[in-house]
């Protein structure tokens, strides 16, 4: 029934990207970047957040129109005007966020992208064709399962199958492993490697994980601030070379010294905590955890193992299914009174969505914790906006928030400055317990150093800090004690000095008992 090109039969194209440029207003996101991908190669695109990797591939995929330069496929210059045009040329992309339809089955998702799909779908013929297609693939998925019931790794596999089914011969993978366990990541990348070795496809892997690049890629192109800063065969480059290309010659910022602190009192005590996710399925299961004053407890783990739900419980954004967190020796019901009296503060991930009111000004957002107290209100009832502004001006200076002023809407601030604003609000009156999740996600190095510095300073001042992060380096750098969370449980614990990356990584991948 279908006449899809068999990836095995047509070889991958020879790709030449020449002086590709993309501007947004006065900002040049991509500045004359050129490189080549020979058929059957595994090419890595390396760079920090904001280096221009996504812009580059969006130009390749027809999501953006490039302002200059050209793309040459098999010696013919091509114009890629839309994602559909890219698809017809055999370019396929697996996005960081899944682009599957959750309420549909695997089979339905696989036939969806087929440009030759008939108006009335001949399901028996489609199924036969899908079975034949899967038989030729190195991994299988049950065609009748609903996508919403698949694990992250299975979804990623389905995304790849979808592209291969479409006949994509150059596959672009955008940080494909960020939601996978190390095992799943190795499986997926190993598979890609196999397909390139067999000459069936070429791969462009966007990543900032050097380990993956070293293990799987043939060649690497490094971008920094929209410019091409390095290129070469992976075999010829050391890890240090690649890091230097990525971050430039700036030395990585040093986080302030940790003062040793004695055994503090237990600030946060969580026992047998159970939490359900949005679908009503258990996300956190019998979680046990303690944080003492003056220590940073780092919780490592692959995203989607219950960390977000756990933080949401502590933030009062999610109901508890079982168990009762105890803060400073008393049950914590997540009321405003308790948060204030016990100094419970939070810096959740994506703070603009989780901890700010978009339409409100910086000053108003800075007042969220204390607007009902003197001097910002009289008798807890009348607002004093002047006092709000005055305090905001102070905090903006103290935490070096870059803003048009206290009256600017918070949504006009950059990510780093939103982070600084929330941190200013949470730390301004001192904190006894600070809960932080992925605080440096997507920030530039300077902001990263500053925010980590503030967290360590809070710890040195006696705050109990619970840090949940997907960035293992961040955990290793900041934590006094390290826990690993997997499938909603703490599965491993170690101290700062005894921590070994291999052990932590192995437990991150561990299936729940």
């Amino acid at each position, binding site marked *: 029934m279908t006449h899809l090109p068999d990836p095995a039969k047509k070889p991958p194209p020879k790709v030449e990207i020449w002086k590709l440029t993309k501007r947004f207003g006065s900002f040049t996101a991509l500045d004359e970047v050129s490189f080549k991908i020979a058929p059957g190669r595994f090419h890595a695109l390396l760079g920090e957040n904001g280096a221009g990797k996504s812009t580059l591939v969006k130009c390749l995929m027809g999501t953006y129109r490039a302002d200059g330069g050209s793309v040459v496929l098999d010696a013919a210059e091509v114009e890629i005007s839309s994602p559909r045009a890219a698809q017809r040329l055999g370019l396929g992309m697996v996005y960081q966020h899944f682009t599957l339809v959750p309420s549909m089955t695997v089979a339905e998702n696989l036939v969806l992208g087929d440009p030759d799909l008939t108006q009335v779908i001949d399901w028996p013929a489609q199924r036969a064709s899908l079975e034949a297609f899967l038989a030729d693939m190195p991994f299988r998925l049950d065609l009748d399962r609903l996508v919403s019931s698949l694990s992250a790794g299975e979804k990623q596999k389905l995304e790849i199958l979808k592209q291969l089914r479409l006949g994509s011969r150059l596959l672009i993978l955008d940080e494909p492993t960020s939601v996978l366990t190390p095992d799943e990541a190795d499986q997926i990348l190993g598979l890609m490697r196999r397909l390139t070795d067999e000459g069936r496809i070429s791969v462009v892997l966007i990543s900032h994980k050097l380990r993956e690049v070293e293990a799987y890629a043939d060649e690497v192109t490094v971008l920094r601030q929209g410019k091409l800063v390095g290129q070469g065969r992976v075999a010829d480059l050391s890890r240090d070379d690649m890091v230097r290309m990525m971050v430039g010659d700036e030395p990585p910022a040093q986080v302030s010294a940790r003062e040793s602190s004695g055994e503090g009192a237990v600030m946060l005590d969580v026992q047998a905590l159970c939490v359900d996710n949005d679908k009503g399925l258990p996300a956190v299961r019998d979680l046990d955890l303690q944080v003492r004053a003056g220590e940073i407890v780092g919780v490592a783990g692959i995203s989607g193992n219950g960390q977000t739900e756990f933080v949401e419980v502590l933030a*009062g954004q999610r109901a508890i299914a079982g168990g009762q967190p105890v803060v400073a020796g008393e049950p914590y019901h997540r*009321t405003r*009174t308790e948060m204030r009296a016990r100094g419970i503060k939070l810096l959740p991930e994506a703070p603009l969505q989780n901890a*700010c009111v978009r339409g409100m000004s910086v000053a108003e957002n800075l007042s969220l914790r204390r607007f009902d107290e003197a001097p910002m209100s009289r008798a807890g009832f009348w607002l004093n906006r002047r006092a709000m502004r005055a305090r905001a001006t102070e905090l903006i200076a103290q935490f070096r928030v870059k803003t048009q002023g206290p009256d600017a809407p918070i949504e006009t601030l950059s990510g780093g400055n939103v982070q600084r604003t929330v941190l200013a609000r949470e730390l301004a009156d001192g904190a006894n317990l600070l809960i932080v999740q992925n605080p440096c996600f997507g920030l530039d190095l300077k902001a990263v150093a500053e925010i980590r510095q503030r967290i360590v300073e809070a710890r040195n001042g006696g705050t109990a800090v619970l840090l949940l992060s997907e960035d293992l380096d961040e955990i290793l750098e900041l934590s006094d004690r390290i826990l690993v969370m997997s499938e909603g449980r703490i599965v491993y614990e170690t101290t700062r000095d005894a921590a070994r990356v291999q052990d932590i990584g192995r437990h991150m991948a561990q299936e729940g008992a």
Partner: protein
Amino acid sequence: MPPPGLLNSLEAVTINVAAFLITMALFGVYVASLGHNPLDVYYVLWLGSFARQISVESTLTNAAPLMLTALCTAIPARAGLLVIGGEGALVVGGVATVLAGVALSGAPFLLGVAVMALAGALAGGLWIGFAGALRQYRGVNETISTLLLNYIAIAVMYHLITGPIRDWDRVLKTSSWSIPQELRVGPLPFIDVHWGLATGVVICLILWIIMRRTTFGFGVDILGGNPRAAQMAGLPINRMVVLCCFIGGAGAGLAGSFEVMAVHGFASESLAVGFGYAGILVAFLSRQNPAAIIVLAILLGGVTASGGLLQRRFDLPDATTQVLQGVLFLVVLASNAAYGRLSLFQPAAWRTT
């Protein structure tokens, strides 16, 4: 550079005025297609709404319930809910007022009126507060539940006025018992508009101050702006939502009280004539600002008031004003797309570089 708050207000005023003009232009094209001169129609609209004392009085009499029913959508909307139950809250408020009034026969005027108004407000408040509680504690979508509650309220009223509280002596119109004549509320001094107008204006102003100047209003704005931030700040969200719904419903219930106390004297189908639905439009036009509600309720009241004259002069059906309201509503919603697009109102345009 002008303060951002002022820019926002100016932007809203400009866009709303433009939406009103576009609506009038569309309406003009339409009446022209029916063979009338649009300018004549505009003139009659003006004549019927604001040109003469009698038309102003009629406009303001229509505006009074609109102000109060608009609150039923506007106040919950500030907390992030889309409540459309003003019609039902007005009806239950009216019925409660009748019951209170009948029970109070012989009571002193001020006490009687106060208790009737309270009964109406309480009934409307509980009616919409129930929808708020259903949403917070059961996850029931408040738009749909309030819509259903409108129909239920009207059915309950019909049930009562055709049986249990029917005034069998009134033959021409099915209606409830009447409240005692001595408890009827009269007109304001100097102008023949009932006290509901003054009450509406005062309540809107009080709520405007509460929403802008108090910690409660600020908390509600946090909740409406981002419920997750409100949760993180530990605000008592459930109570706030139910309270906002109660306040809004109380407004609409009070509108029902005045319709009974000042206009009809009894409950009948005349209570459910669409003030609740027009109030939704007023709330959207005012962008949930209680002070702006006063102005826009008067404007909409004018449109409604001129309907009768329009009907007589041009032989247009009485649904004309409803069509006009509908078009205005659609144009106003479409004009939402213009916010943030007019560079004159962006702080950036005023920045001197």
